Protein backbone atom coordinates (compact mmCIF):
# COMPACT_ATOMS: atom_id res chain seq x y z
CA UNK A 1 0.00 0.00 0.00
CA UNK A 2 1.21 3.49 -0.79
CA UNK A 3 2.49 5.29 2.25
CA UNK A 4 3.04 8.95 3.16
CA UNK A 5 5.07 10.04 6.18
CA UNK A 6 4.73 13.09 8.42
CA UNK A 7 7.78 14.07 10.44
CA UNK A 8 8.19 16.09 13.62
CA UNK A 9 10.78 16.35 16.39
CA UNK A 10 10.14 13.00 17.99
CA UNK A 11 7.37 11.49 15.85
CA UNK A 12 4.88 11.73 18.72
CA UNK A 13 2.75 14.84 18.95
CA UNK A 14 2.66 17.30 16.02
CA UNK A 15 3.32 14.67 13.34
CA UNK A 16 0.65 12.38 14.79
CA UNK A 17 -1.82 15.29 14.95
CA UNK A 18 -1.30 15.93 11.24
CA UNK A 19 -1.35 12.20 10.42
CA UNK A 20 -4.64 11.67 12.27
CA UNK A 21 -6.17 14.67 10.55
CA UNK A 22 -5.09 13.52 7.07
CA UNK A 23 -6.33 9.98 7.76
CA UNK A 24 -9.72 11.39 8.76
CA UNK A 25 -9.93 13.59 5.65
CA UNK A 26 -8.89 10.72 3.36
CA UNK A 27 -11.60 8.53 4.88
CA UNK A 28 -14.18 11.21 4.16
CA UNK A 29 -13.01 11.29 0.54
CA UNK A 30 -12.87 7.46 0.44
CA UNK A 31 -9.19 7.32 -0.55
CA UNK A 32 -6.93 4.50 0.66
CA UNK A 33 -3.42 5.14 1.92
CA UNK A 34 -1.23 4.81 4.97
CA UNK A 35 -0.17 7.97 6.78
CA UNK A 36 2.54 7.47 9.35
CA UNK A 37 4.09 9.80 11.94
CA UNK A 38 7.88 9.54 12.09
CA UNK A 39 10.86 11.14 13.74
CA UNK A 40 12.58 13.98 11.86
CA UNK A 41 16.00 12.73 12.96
CA UNK A 42 15.48 9.45 11.09
CA UNK A 43 13.67 10.92 8.10
CA UNK A 44 16.40 10.21 5.52
CA UNK A 45 16.57 6.57 6.59
CA UNK A 46 12.79 6.28 6.62
CA UNK A 47 12.47 7.71 3.11
CA UNK A 48 14.52 4.81 1.69
CA UNK A 49 11.37 2.68 2.06
CA UNK A 50 10.08 2.15 -1.50
CA UNK A 51 6.42 2.23 -0.41
CA UNK A 52 6.71 5.86 0.61
CA UNK A 53 5.31 8.16 -2.06
CA UNK A 54 5.25 11.48 -0.21
CA UNK A 55 6.47 13.49 2.75
CA UNK A 56 4.28 15.92 4.66
CA UNK A 57 6.63 18.52 6.15
CA UNK A 58 5.72 20.80 9.02
CA UNK A 59 8.93 22.76 8.51
CA UNK A 60 10.34 24.58 5.54
CA UNK A 61 12.27 21.72 3.90
CA UNK A 62 16.00 22.46 4.11
CA UNK A 63 17.01 20.27 1.18
CA UNK A 64 15.68 18.20 -1.73
CA UNK A 65 13.80 14.96 -1.05
CA UNK A 66 13.29 11.97 -3.36
CA UNK A 67 9.49 12.18 -2.98
CA UNK A 68 6.93 14.99 -3.35
CA UNK A 69 6.78 17.26 -0.29
CA UNK A 70 3.49 18.62 1.08
CA UNK A 71 2.76 21.49 3.44
CA UNK A 72 1.75 20.04 6.82
CA UNK A 73 1.18 23.41 8.49
CA UNK A 74 -1.99 23.69 6.39
CA UNK A 75 -3.50 20.81 8.35
CA UNK A 76 -2.66 22.46 11.67
CA UNK A 77 -4.07 25.88 10.82
CA UNK A 78 -6.82 24.84 8.40
CA UNK A 79 -5.59 27.42 5.88
CA UNK A 80 -5.01 26.00 2.40
CA UNK A 81 -5.86 22.53 3.71
CA UNK A 82 -8.14 21.43 0.85
CA UNK A 83 -5.51 22.31 -1.75
CA UNK A 84 -2.83 20.23 0.04
CA UNK A 85 -5.29 17.38 0.50
CA UNK A 86 -6.02 17.34 -3.24
CA UNK A 87 -2.29 17.10 -3.97
CA UNK A 88 -1.92 14.22 -1.50
CA UNK A 89 -4.86 12.36 -3.02
CA UNK A 90 -3.33 12.81 -6.47
CA UNK A 91 -0.17 11.01 -5.29
CA UNK A 92 -2.05 8.25 -3.49
CA UNK A 93 -4.26 7.36 -6.48
Amino acid sequence: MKKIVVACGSGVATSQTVASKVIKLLKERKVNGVIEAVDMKSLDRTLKDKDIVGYIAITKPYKEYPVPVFNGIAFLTGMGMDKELDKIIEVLK
Partner: protein
Amino acid sequence: MELLSTIFQYFLDLGAAVFVPIIMIIAGLCVKMKLKDAISAGITLGVAFVGMNLVVGFMKDAITPVATGMLNSTGLQLDIVDGGWTTMATISWSWPYAFAIFPLQIGINVLMLIFNKTKTFNADLWNVWGKIFIAVIVISLTNNIWIALAIASLQIILELRSGDLHQKTIQSMTGIPGVTCTHRTLFFGCILYPFDCLLKKIPALNKPINIETLRDKIGIFAENHVLGFILGCIFGVIAGYDVGGILNLGIKCACALMLFPMVSKLFMQSLAPISDAVSEFMQKKFAGRELYVGLDWPFMGGINELWIAIIFIIPMIFIDALILPGNNMLPFAGIINFSLAIPALLVTRGNLPRMFILCLIGAPVFLWVGTAIAPYMSELARATGAIELGVNELISNSCINAPVFTYGFGQMFKALTGDFVPLIVAGGWTACWVFYSRYLKKETARLEAEEKAETE
Protein backbone atom coordinates in the same frame (compact mmCIF):
# COMPACT_ATOMS: atom_id res chain seq x y z
CA MET B 1 -22.61 13.52 47.82
CA GLU B 2 -21.21 10.66 49.88
CA LEU B 3 -22.34 8.21 47.19
CA LEU B 4 -20.86 10.35 44.43
CA SER B 5 -17.45 10.44 46.04
CA THR B 6 -17.60 6.67 46.66
CA ILE B 7 -18.33 6.08 42.97
CA PHE B 8 -15.56 8.53 42.02
CA GLN B 9 -13.10 6.78 44.31
CA TYR B 10 -14.11 3.40 42.87
CA PHE B 11 -13.22 4.57 39.36
CA LEU B 12 -9.92 6.10 40.50
CA ASP B 13 -8.97 2.84 42.17
CA LEU B 14 -9.36 1.05 38.84
CA GLY B 15 -6.15 2.78 37.75
CA ALA B 16 -5.25 5.31 35.07
CA ALA B 17 -5.48 2.82 32.19
CA VAL B 18 -9.20 2.44 32.89
CA PHE B 19 -10.47 5.69 34.35
CA VAL B 20 -8.72 8.09 31.98
CA PRO B 21 -10.24 6.31 28.93
CA ILE B 22 -13.68 6.57 30.59
CA ILE B 23 -13.20 10.34 31.00
CA MET B 24 -11.90 10.50 27.43
CA ILE B 25 -15.00 8.75 26.05
CA ILE B 26 -17.28 11.15 27.95
CA ALA B 27 -15.23 14.14 26.72
CA GLY B 28 -15.40 12.74 23.17
CA LEU B 29 -19.18 12.48 23.32
CA CYS B 30 -19.30 16.08 24.61
CA VAL B 31 -17.55 17.28 21.42
CA LYS B 32 -20.05 15.21 19.38
CA MET B 33 -17.88 12.23 18.46
CA LYS B 34 -19.76 9.11 17.33
CA LEU B 35 -20.04 6.54 20.15
CA LYS B 36 -18.11 3.99 18.09
CA ASP B 37 -15.23 6.42 17.46
CA ALA B 38 -15.21 7.61 21.07
CA ILE B 39 -14.91 4.06 22.38
CA SER B 40 -12.15 3.31 19.88
CA ALA B 41 -10.25 6.42 21.00
CA GLY B 42 -10.81 5.50 24.66
CA ILE B 43 -9.40 2.01 24.23
CA THR B 44 -6.40 3.40 22.32
CA LEU B 45 -5.76 5.71 25.29
CA GLY B 46 -5.86 2.77 27.69
CA VAL B 47 -3.44 0.91 25.43
CA ALA B 48 -1.13 3.94 25.50
CA PHE B 49 -1.01 3.83 29.31
CA VAL B 50 -0.35 0.09 29.48
CA GLY B 51 2.17 0.38 26.64
CA MET B 52 4.11 3.17 28.31
CA ASN B 53 4.13 1.14 31.50
CA LEU B 54 5.69 -1.76 29.63
CA VAL B 55 8.42 0.40 28.09
CA VAL B 56 9.20 2.29 31.30
CA GLY B 57 9.29 -0.99 33.23
CA PHE B 58 11.64 -2.47 30.66
CA MET B 59 13.88 0.61 30.81
CA LYS B 60 13.92 0.60 34.62
CA ASP B 61 14.93 -3.07 34.70
CA ALA B 62 17.79 -2.36 32.31
CA ILE B 63 19.06 0.80 33.99
CA THR B 64 18.51 0.30 37.72
CA PRO B 65 21.41 -2.20 38.02
CA VAL B 66 23.61 0.39 36.30
CA ALA B 67 22.77 2.99 38.94
CA THR B 68 23.52 0.46 41.67
CA GLY B 69 26.76 -0.51 39.96
CA MET B 70 27.79 3.14 39.67
CA LEU B 71 27.03 3.72 43.34
CA ASN B 72 29.26 0.79 44.28
CA SER B 73 32.13 1.54 41.91
CA THR B 74 32.18 5.35 41.97
CA GLY B 75 30.04 6.40 44.95
CA LEU B 76 27.80 8.44 42.63
CA GLN B 77 24.16 8.30 43.61
CA LEU B 78 22.23 8.64 40.33
CA ASP B 79 19.19 6.56 41.22
CA ILE B 80 16.43 8.75 39.71
CA VAL B 81 15.35 7.14 36.45
CA ASP B 82 15.13 9.59 33.52
CA GLY B 83 11.91 8.65 31.74
CA GLY B 84 11.97 11.62 29.38
CA TRP B 85 9.02 13.86 28.55
CA THR B 86 6.85 11.05 27.24
CA THR B 87 6.83 9.46 30.70
CA MET B 88 6.01 12.82 32.32
CA ALA B 89 3.13 13.26 29.86
CA THR B 90 1.83 9.78 30.71
CA ILE B 91 1.85 10.52 34.43
CA SER B 92 0.27 13.94 33.86
CA TRP B 93 -2.64 12.57 31.82
CA SER B 94 -3.41 10.20 34.69
CA TRP B 95 -4.30 13.10 37.02
CA PRO B 96 -8.07 12.74 37.67
CA TYR B 97 -8.76 16.40 36.80
CA ALA B 98 -6.53 16.40 33.70
CA PHE B 99 -9.36 16.89 31.20
CA ALA B 100 -10.57 19.99 33.06
CA ILE B 101 -7.57 21.82 31.60
CA PHE B 102 -9.05 21.63 28.07
CA PRO B 103 -12.03 23.92 28.80
CA LEU B 104 -9.78 26.07 31.01
CA GLN B 105 -7.30 26.69 28.18
CA ILE B 106 -9.99 27.28 25.57
CA GLY B 107 -12.02 29.53 27.88
CA ILE B 108 -9.05 31.73 28.77
CA ASN B 109 -7.98 31.91 25.12
CA VAL B 110 -11.46 32.93 23.92
CA LEU B 111 -11.75 35.61 26.62
CA MET B 112 -8.32 37.01 25.82
CA LEU B 113 -9.17 37.13 22.10
CA ILE B 114 -12.52 38.83 22.73
CA PHE B 115 -10.87 41.47 24.93
CA ASN B 116 -7.95 41.89 22.50
CA LYS B 117 -5.39 40.79 25.08
CA THR B 118 -3.76 38.41 22.59
CA LYS B 119 -3.57 37.79 18.85
CA THR B 120 -2.75 34.11 19.30
CA PHE B 121 -5.04 31.12 19.20
CA ASN B 122 -3.31 28.19 20.87
CA ALA B 123 -4.11 25.23 18.62
CA ASP B 124 -1.63 22.98 20.39
CA LEU B 125 -3.96 20.89 22.52
CA TRP B 126 -1.46 18.12 23.02
CA ASN B 127 0.57 20.36 25.30
CA VAL B 128 -2.38 20.76 27.60
CA TRP B 129 -0.37 18.17 29.49
CA GLY B 130 2.20 20.86 30.34
CA LYS B 131 -0.45 22.72 32.34
CA ILE B 132 -1.54 19.46 33.97
CA PHE B 133 2.10 18.85 34.86
CA ILE B 134 2.52 22.10 36.80
CA ALA B 135 -0.94 21.72 38.38
CA VAL B 136 0.11 18.29 39.65
CA ILE B 137 3.26 19.70 41.24
CA VAL B 138 1.26 22.49 42.90
CA ILE B 139 -1.43 20.16 44.17
CA SER B 140 0.98 17.71 45.74
CA LEU B 141 2.37 20.62 47.80
CA THR B 142 -0.82 22.53 48.62
CA ASN B 143 -3.54 19.89 48.27
CA ASN B 144 -5.70 22.69 46.88
CA ILE B 145 -7.20 22.25 43.42
CA TRP B 146 -8.06 25.95 43.04
CA ILE B 147 -4.48 27.07 43.58
CA ALA B 148 -3.36 24.39 41.11
CA LEU B 149 -5.84 25.64 38.50
CA ALA B 150 -4.76 29.25 39.15
CA ILE B 151 -1.09 28.43 38.43
CA ALA B 152 -2.14 26.44 35.36
CA SER B 153 -4.16 29.48 34.20
CA LEU B 154 -1.14 31.71 34.69
CA GLN B 155 0.83 29.38 32.45
CA ILE B 156 -1.93 29.42 29.81
CA ILE B 157 -1.90 33.25 29.76
CA LEU B 158 1.90 33.43 29.61
CA GLU B 159 2.01 30.92 26.75
CA LEU B 160 -0.33 33.13 24.73
CA ARG B 161 1.71 36.25 25.56
CA SER B 162 4.88 34.39 24.63
CA GLY B 163 3.23 33.39 21.34
CA ASP B 164 2.46 37.06 20.58
CA LEU B 165 5.94 38.23 21.55
CA HIS B 166 7.89 35.59 19.62
CA GLN B 167 5.78 35.55 16.44
CA LYS B 168 7.82 37.93 14.28
CA THR B 169 11.15 36.48 15.38
CA ILE B 170 9.97 32.94 14.62
CA GLN B 171 8.48 33.98 11.28
CA SER B 172 11.72 35.63 10.23
CA MET B 173 13.71 32.51 11.20
CA THR B 174 11.43 29.83 9.73
CA GLY B 175 9.88 31.76 6.85
CA ILE B 176 6.45 30.41 7.84
CA PRO B 177 3.83 33.18 8.18
CA GLY B 178 0.74 33.27 10.38
CA VAL B 179 1.91 30.82 13.01
CA THR B 180 3.78 31.11 16.29
CA CYS B 181 4.97 28.80 19.04
CA THR B 182 2.89 28.63 22.21
CA HIS B 183 5.03 26.00 23.85
CA ARG B 184 6.15 26.81 27.41
CA THR B 185 9.64 25.66 26.48
CA LEU B 186 10.19 29.24 25.22
CA PHE B 187 9.91 30.51 28.82
CA PHE B 188 13.50 29.47 29.50
CA GLY B 189 14.64 32.05 26.94
CA CYS B 190 14.28 34.83 29.49
CA ILE B 191 16.84 33.14 31.75
CA LEU B 192 19.31 32.77 28.86
CA TYR B 193 18.73 36.29 27.53
CA PRO B 194 20.82 38.26 30.09
CA PHE B 195 23.77 35.91 29.43
CA ASP B 196 23.33 36.39 25.70
CA CYS B 197 23.44 40.17 26.15
CA LEU B 198 26.96 39.74 27.57
CA LEU B 199 28.04 37.21 24.91
CA LYS B 200 26.95 39.58 22.13
CA LYS B 201 29.73 41.93 23.25
CA ILE B 202 32.46 39.39 22.38
CA PRO B 203 33.28 39.88 18.66
CA ALA B 204 34.92 36.46 18.20
CA LEU B 205 31.61 34.76 18.97
CA ASN B 206 29.64 36.66 16.41
CA LYS B 207 31.10 35.40 13.13
CA PRO B 208 28.75 33.41 10.89
CA ILE B 209 29.55 29.70 10.57
CA ASN B 210 28.65 27.50 7.63
CA ILE B 211 26.96 24.33 8.84
CA GLU B 212 24.96 23.30 5.77
CA THR B 213 26.37 19.78 5.63
CA LEU B 214 27.18 19.26 9.29
CA ARG B 215 23.65 18.18 10.19
CA ASP B 216 23.69 15.30 7.71
CA LYS B 217 27.12 14.18 8.87
CA ILE B 218 26.55 14.05 12.62
CA GLY B 219 22.79 13.56 12.56
CA ILE B 220 23.11 9.79 12.84
CA PHE B 221 24.22 10.12 16.47
CA ALA B 222 20.89 11.64 17.41
CA GLU B 223 18.83 8.83 15.87
CA ASN B 224 17.11 7.00 18.67
CA HIS B 225 18.52 3.53 18.10
CA VAL B 226 22.11 4.73 17.63
CA LEU B 227 21.96 7.13 20.57
CA GLY B 228 20.36 4.51 22.82
CA PHE B 229 23.04 1.99 21.89
CA ILE B 230 25.89 4.42 22.59
CA LEU B 231 24.40 5.49 25.93
CA GLY B 232 23.76 1.88 26.95
CA CYS B 233 27.37 0.93 26.17
CA ILE B 234 28.69 3.89 28.19
CA PHE B 235 26.41 2.94 31.11
CA GLY B 236 27.76 -0.61 30.89
CA VAL B 237 31.36 0.56 30.98
CA ILE B 238 30.77 2.85 33.98
CA ALA B 239 28.92 0.13 35.87
CA GLY B 240 31.85 -2.25 35.24
CA TYR B 241 30.08 -4.84 33.03
CA ASP B 242 31.98 -7.31 30.82
CA VAL B 243 31.91 -6.92 27.01
CA GLY B 244 28.84 -9.15 26.58
CA GLY B 245 27.01 -7.23 29.29
CA ILE B 246 27.97 -3.89 27.74
CA LEU B 247 26.72 -4.84 24.27
CA ASN B 248 23.50 -6.31 25.63
CA LEU B 249 22.78 -3.20 27.66
CA GLY B 250 23.48 -1.14 24.51
CA ILE B 251 20.82 -3.00 22.55
CA LYS B 252 18.33 -2.82 25.43
CA CYS B 253 18.77 0.94 25.74
CA ALA B 254 18.44 1.30 21.94
CA CYS B 255 15.20 -0.66 22.20
CA ALA B 256 13.83 1.58 24.98
CA LEU B 257 14.60 4.81 23.10
CA MET B 258 13.04 3.44 19.89
CA LEU B 259 9.89 2.21 21.59
CA PHE B 260 9.14 5.38 23.60
CA PRO B 261 7.90 7.47 20.65
CA MET B 262 6.16 4.48 19.04
CA VAL B 263 4.04 3.96 22.13
CA SER B 264 3.52 7.54 23.20
CA LYS B 265 2.13 8.58 19.83
CA LEU B 266 -0.88 6.44 20.76
CA PHE B 267 -1.78 9.20 23.24
CA MET B 268 -1.91 11.67 20.39
CA GLN B 269 -3.88 9.28 18.20
CA SER B 270 -6.61 8.98 20.81
CA LEU B 271 -6.66 12.69 21.67
CA ALA B 272 -6.66 13.85 18.02
CA PRO B 273 -10.48 13.92 17.58
CA ILE B 274 -10.89 16.19 20.62
CA SER B 275 -8.07 18.43 19.49
CA ASP B 276 -9.65 18.55 16.01
CA ALA B 277 -13.08 19.47 17.28
CA VAL B 278 -11.66 22.34 19.33
CA SER B 279 -9.56 23.68 16.44
CA GLU B 280 -12.54 23.64 14.09
CA PHE B 281 -14.70 25.39 16.69
CA MET B 282 -12.11 28.15 17.15
CA GLN B 283 -11.48 28.57 13.43
CA LYS B 284 -15.23 29.06 12.88
CA LYS B 285 -15.68 31.36 15.86
CA PHE B 286 -12.86 33.71 14.92
CA ALA B 287 -13.09 33.36 11.13
CA GLY B 288 -12.09 36.52 9.28
CA ARG B 289 -9.92 37.83 12.10
CA GLU B 290 -6.18 37.85 11.65
CA LEU B 291 -4.85 35.40 14.22
CA TYR B 292 -1.53 33.75 14.85
CA VAL B 293 -2.05 30.02 15.20
CA GLY B 294 -0.04 28.75 18.17
CA LEU B 295 1.72 25.46 17.49
CA ASP B 296 4.05 23.03 19.23
CA TRP B 297 7.73 23.73 18.47
CA PRO B 298 8.56 21.18 15.67
CA PHE B 299 7.68 23.52 12.82
CA MET B 300 11.00 25.18 13.72
CA GLY B 301 12.76 21.85 13.17
CA GLY B 302 13.93 22.84 9.71
CA ILE B 303 16.61 25.06 11.25
CA ASN B 304 19.93 23.20 11.15
CA GLU B 305 21.50 25.01 14.12
CA LEU B 306 18.85 23.48 16.38
CA TRP B 307 20.00 19.95 15.63
CA ILE B 308 23.69 20.74 15.97
CA ALA B 309 22.98 22.20 19.43
CA ILE B 310 20.90 19.19 20.44
CA ILE B 311 23.73 16.81 19.57
CA PHE B 312 26.17 19.04 21.43
CA ILE B 313 23.98 18.93 24.56
CA ILE B 314 23.96 15.12 24.76
CA PRO B 315 27.55 14.56 26.00
CA MET B 316 27.46 17.80 27.95
CA ILE B 317 24.45 16.87 30.05
CA PHE B 318 25.89 13.43 30.57
CA ILE B 319 29.18 14.82 31.91
CA ASP B 320 27.28 17.36 34.03
CA ALA B 321 25.27 14.54 35.57
CA LEU B 322 28.47 12.84 36.72
CA ILE B 323 30.15 15.92 38.20
CA LEU B 324 27.32 18.21 39.27
CA PRO B 325 26.65 18.44 43.03
CA GLY B 326 22.96 18.07 43.87
CA ASN B 327 22.09 15.90 40.88
CA ASN B 328 20.67 12.41 41.46
CA MET B 329 19.47 11.60 37.96
CA LEU B 330 21.15 9.44 35.31
CA PRO B 331 20.23 11.15 32.00
CA PHE B 332 18.67 8.80 29.51
CA ALA B 333 15.25 9.11 27.84
CA GLY B 334 15.21 12.91 28.14
CA ILE B 335 18.66 13.43 26.71
CA ILE B 336 17.45 14.79 23.35
CA ASN B 337 16.97 18.13 25.05
CA PHE B 338 14.80 20.42 22.92
CA SER B 339 13.83 22.31 26.05
CA LEU B 340 17.30 23.82 26.20
CA ALA B 341 18.13 24.00 22.49
CA ILE B 342 14.97 25.83 21.36
CA PRO B 343 15.15 28.81 23.73
CA ALA B 344 18.90 29.08 23.00
CA LEU B 345 18.11 29.10 19.26
CA LEU B 346 15.50 31.84 19.57
CA VAL B 347 17.49 34.06 21.95
CA THR B 348 20.61 33.99 19.77
CA ARG B 349 18.65 33.86 16.48
CA GLY B 350 20.69 30.85 15.46
CA ASN B 351 24.21 32.01 16.36
CA LEU B 352 25.92 28.68 17.07
CA PRO B 353 28.88 29.74 19.27
CA ARG B 354 26.54 31.66 21.56
CA MET B 355 24.02 28.80 21.52
CA PHE B 356 26.75 26.41 22.67
CA ILE B 357 27.76 28.65 25.56
CA LEU B 358 24.14 29.22 26.60
CA CYS B 359 23.53 25.45 26.53
CA LEU B 360 26.59 24.98 28.73
CA ILE B 361 25.22 27.51 31.22
CA GLY B 362 21.66 26.19 31.09
CA ALA B 363 22.28 22.43 31.28
CA PRO B 364 22.75 22.11 35.08
CA VAL B 365 19.33 23.70 35.66
CA PHE B 366 17.65 20.76 33.94
CA LEU B 367 19.39 18.22 36.17
CA TRP B 368 18.64 20.15 39.37
CA VAL B 369 14.98 20.73 38.57
CA GLY B 370 14.61 17.14 37.38
CA THR B 371 15.98 15.98 40.73
CA ALA B 372 13.72 18.40 42.64
CA ILE B 373 10.43 17.37 41.06
CA ALA B 374 11.10 13.60 41.02
CA PRO B 375 9.25 12.91 44.32
CA TYR B 376 6.06 14.64 43.13
CA MET B 377 5.82 12.91 39.78
CA SER B 378 6.69 9.54 41.33
CA GLU B 379 4.00 10.05 43.96
CA LEU B 380 1.30 10.71 41.35
CA ALA B 381 2.52 7.76 39.26
CA ARG B 382 2.11 5.52 42.29
CA ALA B 383 -1.28 7.01 43.28
CA THR B 384 -2.86 6.53 39.85
CA GLY B 385 -0.93 3.47 38.78
CA ALA B 386 0.05 5.31 35.57
CA ILE B 387 3.58 3.95 35.88
CA GLU B 388 4.35 1.12 38.26
CA LEU B 389 7.05 2.13 40.73
CA GLY B 390 8.48 0.49 43.80
CA VAL B 391 8.25 2.26 47.18
CA ASN B 392 11.70 3.84 46.93
CA GLU B 393 11.87 4.20 43.16
CA LEU B 394 11.94 7.70 41.69
CA ILE B 395 11.23 8.76 38.13
CA SER B 396 11.74 12.15 36.49
CA ASN B 397 12.88 13.81 33.27
CA SER B 398 16.17 15.47 32.30
CA CYS B 399 14.53 17.82 29.76
CA ILE B 400 11.70 19.43 31.71
CA ASN B 401 10.25 22.32 29.72
CA ALA B 402 10.59 25.77 31.26
CA PRO B 403 12.51 24.37 34.26
CA VAL B 404 12.95 27.64 36.13
CA PHE B 405 9.29 28.63 35.74
CA THR B 406 8.12 25.13 36.68
CA TYR B 407 10.31 24.97 39.76
CA GLY B 408 9.57 28.53 40.92
CA PHE B 409 5.83 28.68 40.32
CA GLY B 410 5.22 24.98 40.96
CA GLN B 411 6.82 25.07 44.37
CA MET B 412 6.51 28.68 45.56
CA PHE B 413 3.99 27.61 48.20
CA LYS B 414 6.84 25.95 50.03
CA ALA B 415 7.34 29.45 51.45
CA LEU B 416 4.43 28.67 53.78
CA THR B 417 6.59 26.05 55.46
CA GLY B 418 9.69 28.23 55.57
CA ASP B 419 11.46 27.31 52.30
CA PHE B 420 11.71 30.57 50.38
CA VAL B 421 14.01 29.39 47.56
CA PRO B 422 11.29 28.56 44.98
CA LEU B 423 9.48 31.84 45.70
CA ILE B 424 12.71 33.78 45.12
CA VAL B 425 13.30 31.79 41.90
CA ALA B 426 9.75 32.66 40.76
CA GLY B 427 10.50 36.35 41.43
CA GLY B 428 13.79 36.10 39.53
CA TRP B 429 12.08 34.44 36.58
CA THR B 430 9.44 37.19 36.48
CA ALA B 431 12.10 39.92 36.45
CA CYS B 432 13.96 38.19 33.60
CA TRP B 433 10.67 37.72 31.72
CA VAL B 434 9.87 41.45 31.90
CA PHE B 435 13.38 42.28 30.68
CA TYR B 436 13.17 39.72 27.84
CA SER B 437 9.64 40.83 26.82
CA ARG B 438 10.93 44.36 26.30
CA TYR B 439 13.62 43.07 23.95
CA LEU B 440 11.08 40.93 22.04
CA LYS B 441 8.79 43.94 21.63
CA LYS B 442 11.67 45.94 20.16
CA GLU B 443 12.53 43.05 17.85
CA THR B 444 8.90 42.84 16.71
CA ALA B 445 8.86 46.55 15.89
CA ARG B 446 12.16 46.23 14.00
CA LEU B 447 10.99 43.22 11.96
CA GLU B 448 7.64 44.85 11.18
CA ALA B 449 9.47 47.93 9.88
CA GLU B 450 11.64 45.67 7.70
CA GLU B 451 8.56 43.89 6.37
CA LYS B 452 6.98 47.22 5.51
CA ALA B 453 10.12 48.47 3.76
CA GLU B 454 10.20 45.30 1.66
CA THR B 455 6.61 45.55 0.50
CA GLU B 456 6.92 49.21 -0.40
